[in-house]
């Protein structure tokens, strides 16, 4: 086994995903078979190989530190599930 049900539960917590018991079972099996497949990468010697994080070589992209237009408060709040005045409203954070 590459991954246990307990590990899957832990990853679900990290990912902020509330999974049902059935989903935990399914994902444990599926993740195990996918991770077993991924194991094949270990057959390759990658000692000294530089990791690629981007397809095209690129340096930091700088721009002038100047304020530009923004979409405005009403447009930004237009999709809010819940709002109060000019804020996004969320459930109580500190119990």
């Amino acid at each position: 086994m590459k991954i246990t049900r307990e590990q899957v539960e832990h990853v679900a917590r990290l990912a902020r995903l509330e999974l049902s018991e059935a989903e935990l079972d399914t994902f444990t099996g599926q993740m195990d078979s996918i991770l077993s497949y991924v194991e094949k990468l270990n057959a390759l010697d990658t000692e000294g190989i530089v990791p690629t994080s981007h397809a095209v070589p690129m340096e930091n992209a700088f721009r002038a530190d100047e304020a530009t237009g923004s979409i405005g408060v009403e447009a930004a709040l237009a999709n809010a599930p819940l709002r109060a005045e000019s804020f996004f409203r969320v459930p109580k954070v500190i119990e």
Partner: protein
Amino acid sequence: MEIFDLTIHELHEKLKAKEVSSVEATRAMLDRIEAVDSQVNAYITVTPEQALVQAEDADRRIAAGEIAPLTGIPVGLKDIFVTKGIRTTCGSRILENFVPPYDGTAVARLKEQGAVIVGKLNQDEFAMGSSNESSYFGPCKNPWDLSCTPGGSSGGSAAAIAARTATATLGTDTGGSIRQPASHCGCVGLKPTYGRVSRYGVIAYASSLDQVGPLTRDVTDSALLLGAVAGYDPRDSTSVNTPVPDYLASLAKGVKGMKIGLPKQYFIEGLDPDVKRAMDEAIALYQSLGADIREVSLPNTEYAVATYYIIATAEASANLARYDGVRFGHRAEDARGLAQMYSKSRAEGFGPEVKRRIMLGTYALSSGYYDAYYVKAQKVRTLIQQDFLNAFKEVDVLLTPIAPTPAFKIAEKLEDPLQMYLSDIFTIPVNLAGTCGISVPAGFSAAGLPIGLQLVGKPFGEQEILTAAYSFERETKWHLKKAPL
């Protein structure tokens, strides 16, 4: 020939000659959508009112003699492109009611030219899938055989071309999501080099792999639409600041003397016999046109799918962290406290494939596994990229199949995610290498399903693959066959 059958360049000539107005063309397209889309489900949202306003505006431009190649042309957009004032779902319940406050750059460039947007197209949820079956809005069907998938993730973008419910469409390609559905639906689909087209306003899946590209009826349209959306954008710091060539100007250069490589790892046992036959015929045709065909090697091909499913899921798990029910998107109703609001909103909003990839990516990035999975995959990505650069020292373009088989049946691969992932084996390496590829219609299976040919170019070698594709299209005419719908 109906208006909705025309290519961009054919309709452009009729608009310019005032044989037809954009309002007429747009109405014809909207009527066609009304008539056939209930069978295909290529559209998540159709926008008739906005489209007709844009068409009237286009007709005013044309009357004033200000016609650009896309002025007045009815186009469809994968629902991954944010569109100001038009619902953008990305195929997900979590964005079911999301109405973006801005247009992305590719969309803005189409609008500047006066293109008419007729609607937003079906796709796999968050572009995660190879069959369009993970869409919250139901599977899209293949117009050539309604019991088959159109491929994915840009399934709606390809199916709308085959069903003639859009003159052209835009899709995105992270592991084959433009090229594979184009192949399965018998249209032309181009994935440009990473950085060629801005990703601003494209809902992110895997940011180091995602790229925007055209799906069209022919190669000329592909060149034309790529030229319209390509180019540097200060709003996407990964877009590359090199001039956009005139892709149309080099189309008819021909392939005499062009060095075309056949990667031996792509012509393997297990290739569907119909696909194999189509490739053999294509190779023979290029030979007869004077191309110099050679075998090349991409030795790390067999590691590409594993590499992709680590890198793409890792990036996805980070990108999709923003869907938390706070600022936009679905929020669970009955959560106790903030933490449960996050986890319930995400549980309700995401479908199984998205959850699976978030889980895989979170695992690959988690403490203790980061080096073993994520860094390892990034190193193998370097080797895969080097394979391509080495091959391109010997040849100008590569010729490969797009997929091992023609379109598969709906539900055929749903139960086994790994089998679904493996169907992208010939397209994924191109995204990892960051280079460009095009799918061109190359024949049909015995069952009458389209088969696509892939031409892969050097980084920023879009001109070469378009030239090679155009030569092929001109000789074969496979692209003129119409789906029975």
